[in-house]
């Protein structure tokens, strides 16, 4: 057990994608960044499909609706990089990466790759664990 009272919160993200055109900037990562600011720090475990957000990508986040081009869509990679810059730890478990056909060399720099079940072992280090 940790020696001091845990202060940080762990967020577990299993369904990161919840819409594009209606959501735009206000996605789950927008919430995480605000919670990280308000609380005493928040770390993020990307599990299951959430692991897709831990990967580097060269895709362009833009689409059209009729004649209107929309380039203000959710950008999970940029959001994860911002979370890291703002002091959050972000990790995935390797089996989730492998299940997506991805490997750790595609991870965003700063995202940790843990062994299966390692997230659970970290729970006692946190004040709260939230499935968001």
């Amino acid at each position, binding site marked *: 057990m940790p020696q001091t009272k845990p202060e940080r919160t762990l967020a577990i993200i299993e369904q990161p994608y919840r819409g594009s055109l209606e959501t735009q*900037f206000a996605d789950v990562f927008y919430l995480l*960044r605000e919670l990280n600011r308000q609380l005493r720090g928040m770390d993020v475990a990307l599990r299951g499909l959430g692991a897709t957000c831990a990967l580097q990508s060269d895709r362009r986040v833009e689409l059209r*609706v*009729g004649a209107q081009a929309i380039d203000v869509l959710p950008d999970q990679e940029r959001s994860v990089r911002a979370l890291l810059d703002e002091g959050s730890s972000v990790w995935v478990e390797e089996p989730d990466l492998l299940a997506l056909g991805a490997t750790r060399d595609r991870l965003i720099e700063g995202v940790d790759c843990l062994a299966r079940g390692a997230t659970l072992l970290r729970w006692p280090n946190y004040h709260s664990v939230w499935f968001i």
Partner: protein
Amino acid sequence: MRAIPPSDVLFAVMGAPHASDMTTSVLRLTGVLLERSATVQVWTCGYATMLTHSAHDEHKPRNLIDWSREHPSTSTLVRNLLRAHPDRLHWYACRFCSEERGLAGHIPEVRVRPPLRFADHVKASRKTIFIGRI
């Protein structure tokens, strides 16, 4: 009562926004069909009725992290499509679902319809695509 214009495709949109790719799929497919000269009608039920809520501003609330950037609301996206294709796109909202979910009203371009008329819209369309869970 105004006749229902015949259409090539009816999207029956049942699910809630902010939960899946439903909203994006409907708007993109509608846009592409209109570009290909198709006639389209959209009927929203359940929380999908929120897409054209009259309380929406032209833009979403400000992004606190990127204050100067504007983001169109779904009402604006729908309105732009309707204005660009006034004769080939019609957007309807279910009255029961709207009232049940407390919607004060829809943007003026959207027609509110009683749920008992849904079958008439299906009949007026060559193909109906049901999307989302109510």
